[in-house]
């Protein structure tokens, strides 16, 4: 065994030994027992913990049933669909529109062991503190049918339980627009695990909210300690809220329907089109959790491309598909 092998093993063992482990088994068991619709809770647990719409294939039936082993809800093949540009698949017009019942359905999604609502990836905010590591969190304390404000974004950074910064106050917070260096995207693309199907790093996009937790100016104060993030002061909270609405609509679409892979892909592309190619990242994530054959669009405004990223949650299966980037 080489010195390098020894150091690597020792490092891994050392880190593993320092790992903190919290037991939350009661959240799983008790929540499953009190829920009349277990399919929803499992999905929402994944939704919250993994972040975003990854668990949406579990939220298929409308109304949901207790048939855990059952297949997906019948696919809605009703008319009135529109075809997104560049796709032969048609999608329902209301899949990108927040319907009256969508907000209620979203807010009623039960969470295991928590009193808060599920969060949306479009509520993501990065918190940079004067000391300590940056934190990525969600500004999800505001009602889903109310717009997020810059104060909400700052509040998410003040109240985050993992922050080690002290003397935080809303007066010292500056909300900026953050963008990533193109090399970040290139690394993702070159990894071979994701495939660009739409968009590009050169295009304009709304960036993502960054909160500087100290008195600073976005133009003069860059996040110099971070290798890949640059700041500007032109964050559009309207763009954030528009993204929230679109994501909420996509969530609701996945609750109501069992989307095929092609439909999910078309929905992601359509979402990009709705925001004028301003989605930073939208991908398709497949899951066979309880509902094999049902897919959901994964839309994340942090990234610049529409990519195909199918990683099954079922063990030992990781599938990557290739799609013509120009399609």
């Amino acid at each position: 065994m080489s010195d390098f092998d020894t150091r690597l093993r020792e490092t891994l063992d050392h880190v593993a030994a320092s790992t903190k482990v919290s037991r939350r088994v009661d959240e799983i068991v008790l929540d499953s027992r009190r829920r009349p619709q277990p399919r929803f809770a499992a999905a929402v647990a994944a939704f919250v913990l993994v972040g975003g719409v990854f668990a949406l294939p579990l939220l298929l039936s409308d109304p949901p049933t207790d048939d855990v082993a059952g297949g997906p809800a019948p696919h809605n093949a009703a008319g009135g669909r529109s075809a997104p540009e560049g796709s032969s698949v048609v999608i329902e017009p209301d899949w990108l529109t927040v319907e009256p019942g969508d907000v209620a359905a979203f807010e009623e999604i039960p969470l295991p062991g928590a009193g808060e609502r599920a969060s949306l990836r479009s509520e993501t905010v990065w918190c940079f503190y004067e000391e300590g590591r940056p934190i990525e969190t969600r500004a999800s304390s505001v009602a889903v049918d109310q717009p997020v404000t810059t104060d909400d974004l700052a509040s998410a950074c003040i109240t985050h339980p993992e922050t080690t910064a002290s003397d935080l106050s809303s007066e010292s917070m500056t909300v900026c627009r953050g963008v990533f260096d193109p090399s970040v995207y290139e690394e993702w693309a070159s990894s071979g695990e994701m495939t660009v199907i739409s968009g590009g790093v050169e295009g304009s996009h709304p960036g993502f909210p960054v909160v500087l937790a100290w008195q600073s100016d976005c133009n003069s104060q860059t996040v110099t300690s971070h290798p890949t993030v640059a700041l500007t002061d032109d964050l559009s909270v309207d763009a954030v809220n528009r993204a929230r609405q679109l994501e909420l609509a996509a969530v609701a679409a996945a609750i109501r329907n069992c989307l095929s892979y092609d439909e999910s892909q078309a929905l992601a592309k359509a979402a990009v089109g709705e925001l004028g190619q301003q989605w930073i990242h939208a991908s398709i994530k497949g899951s066979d959790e309880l509902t094999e054959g049902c897919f959901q669009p994964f839309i994340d405004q942090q990234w610049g491309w529409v990519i195909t990223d199918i990683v099954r949650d079922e063990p030992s299966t990781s599938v990557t598909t290739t799609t013509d980037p120009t399609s």
Partner: protein
Amino acid sequence: MSSWIDDMSGAEQSVGGFRDVYETALPRLVRLAHLITGSNSAAEDVVHDVFVAAYRRWGRIDDPYGYLYRAVVNRSRSVLRRRAVELEHAAESSTVDLPPELDEVWIALSKIPVKRRTALVLRYYADLPVDAIAEVMGVRPATVRSLIHRGYMSMRKELNA
């Protein structure tokens, strides 16, 4: 598959069995996820999420420990890809208290591609043979050998940078 997975086989397929498996497997799974994701908090979320999914289908899982192990590896890789930038930075300001000579190894590990990192963790921490790593990652054994070699070289490059 690894010895500790073999040690935990034969769990009762009941809620009580679920609790037993949870108590037995949780620490090891969180540690594994921590090593792959580079984040303790992300690791806890990943493992909790996997257990939530497992509980829903508990009666239909033949090999709970193998299932949990593979699911945690799969989901950790997925989370790591999505949070690559954040975690890269987090590792640079390491939250793990390590001696300097190990801290630089930990930081170097955080900077290499996800697949290579996963393969190295499974090889050097979990002590899985190549065939078992291939099964967990859903790739061919030859690919695993390549990932380990390339991961090894990537880390050497990072450490010498």
